[in-house]
């Protein structure tokens, strides 16, 4: 079955067959654009992004009201650092929201990706166009990754803006006690954002795979969320120590290496490797399932 599909997505050799049509790449970008518009114009998804923006603002206000005056000492906690510098609100917001809210947003988009089309019945219309199964899956996954990155950016930008409004801004004192310039601090914020977006991309691949197995988007979304939360819980139970490095969420919080000097790059790289492996495995599962499944919805 998958061999048949391989010919459906024309390899370079067959490009001549489609010579009178726009290039394959341009056609695919058009499909991707359509996917992105579908996700980013949908009211539900915009509401999700609004929640992601509102939470750091509420967090900033709450911390501002509760904050003791005066800077924190060396090796102090996130919260203490905040009183000295608004940039830290970005790290605090990411740390809190990566536990549940960010995975929730990614679970909604990824779980809905295929199952949503199947439940509406639009999947059969797309496939008879024909959109091409591999082609459609690729557009869906890129859209999930873009949404995950957008979600992280929304959190960080909202947090930075709130931090700048409510707290002093200046050279950033890191968790290890060293102080770096504001520009250096913002660069680290950017790296943290990208690292967390990588974590969300891995979770998105899991969601995409689950989504190809069902016609019920709510079921797929719930499954992704249960997996993420279950993995986070298992990661905190000492008896699971041997499997913990292999859990999908194990490396999520290791972005705090970026808040120390010197940066612990080996931990970061192991985290990114874990995300990459999860993405490859679950995208493969999604592809194997979707290209061989009968579409009866």
């Amino acid at each position, binding site marked *: 079955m998958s061999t048949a599909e391989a*010919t459906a997505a024309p390899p370079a050799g067959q490009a001549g067959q489609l010579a009178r049509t726009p290039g394959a790449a341009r056609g695919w970008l058009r499909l991707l654009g359509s996917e992105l518009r579908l996700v980013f114009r949908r009211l539900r998804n915009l509401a999700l992004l609004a929640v992601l923006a509102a939470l750091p603002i509420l967090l900033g206000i709450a911390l501002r009201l509760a904050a003791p005056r005066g800077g924190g000492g060396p090796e102090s906690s996130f919260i203490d650092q905040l009183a000295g510098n608004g940039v830290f609100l970005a790290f605090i917001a990411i740390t809190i929201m990566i536990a549940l809210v960010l995975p929730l947003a990614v679970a909604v988009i990824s779980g809905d990706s295929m199952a949503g089309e199947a439940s509406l019945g639009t999947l059969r219309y797309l496939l008879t166009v024909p959109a*091409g199964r591999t082609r459609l899956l690729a557009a869906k996954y890129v859209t999930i990754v873009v949404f995950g990155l957008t979600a992280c950016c929304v959190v960080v930008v909202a947090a930075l803006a709130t931090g700048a409004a409510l707290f002093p801004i200046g050279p950033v004192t890191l968790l290890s006690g060293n102080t770096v310039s504001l520009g250096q601090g913002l660069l680290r914020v950017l790296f943290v954002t990208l690292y967390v977006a990588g974590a969300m991309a891995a979770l998105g691949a899991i969601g995409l795979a689950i989504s190809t197995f069902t016609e019920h988007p709510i079921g797929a979304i719930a499954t992704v969320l249960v997996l993420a939360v279950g993995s986070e819980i298992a990661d905190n139970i000492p008896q699971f120590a041997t499997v913990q490095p292999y859990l999908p969420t194990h490396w999520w919080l290791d972005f705090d290496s970026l808040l120390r000097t010197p940066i612990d790059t080996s931990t970061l790289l192991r985290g990114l490797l874990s995300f990459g492996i999860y993405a490859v495995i679950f995208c493969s599962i999604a592809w194997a399932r979707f290209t061989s499944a*009968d579409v009866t919805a």
Partner: protein
Amino acid sequence: MSAARPDSAQAPAADGGPGSQEDAPLPGPGEAEPASGAGAAAGPAITTSGLTKRFRGGQVAVDDLGLAVPRGAVYGFLGPNGSGKTTTIRMLLGLIYPTRGGVRLLGEPVPGASARVLPRVGSLVEGPAFYPYLSGRANLARIDAADRTADPRTAPARIDAALDRVGLLSAARKRYRAYSLGMKQRLAIATALLRPRELIILDEPTNGLDPQGTREVRGLIREIATDGVTVLVSSHLLAEVEQICTHVGVMRTGRLVFQGTLDELRSRGSRRIVIRTTQATEAAKTMAALGLPDIQSADGEVSAQLADHSPERICRELVLAGVGVAGLDTPRPNLEDLFVGLTGEGFDVDG
């Protein structure tokens, strides 16, 4: 009448048509294709050979199906609900993979050459399905964007032309959610009209429509067919397709029990002779003497199966026997009756 005779179902659809290719062996889906261009236009629009689908759980939805839809035909694909029509159509369009057998659309194997052939095929599968929060126009734009062979520069014009053709242009900006059932159905047909097609496959296009909507859809199909486009339209209602079809295929429990032109279907039915007379008993006696089967008498009318007898001879014999013949008729067989005969009881389960 013996209801199901699957062996006779394989009769070629176009009787004695030039170069009828439906008997040609179908190459496997993986085989290399000769360049398909103008030469392919002569072949049939749809052929399936030994098409079989067994779902997980063992249920055989489609069993050894041999469809042959000639180019330019309006093919009525008939059968009760659950007889395997939709499963067949899903296999034709590459949504479901056959357990055995192969499909060729416009001479190309499906799903092997789906990317090449499906852009030339417009379809509506099992009712309309769109994004409820998008407008009709945005929904069509979404479908068009998925077509790698469609030119994005002409998309707005093509979308509006398709909407206009199904009479939805004035409702183009309305959300799909707010569409009536008839409008939804027409929007689904519009997706098949987004670009010029060689073949259009419509699965139950009038399902759930009121008589007015049904008439509109029927007119649309007729109009599409006059452009030389081959149309396959499935239905569980004979009356719905009888007026527009040139060919019919009849399914029953996953098997094709008849395939051919409408006239061929009619000729399958045994014609009857109906005599109006005041001397019913004598007429019946004479007919029995002639050896006519199935003689029935009621209300001053005596009827019998015509079998091989000529009406002229029967009339003469009746007159010679002293029966006053007030009227004589040999009505065409009732298609509805033929149909129920082919598909069995419970044909019209929800009509």
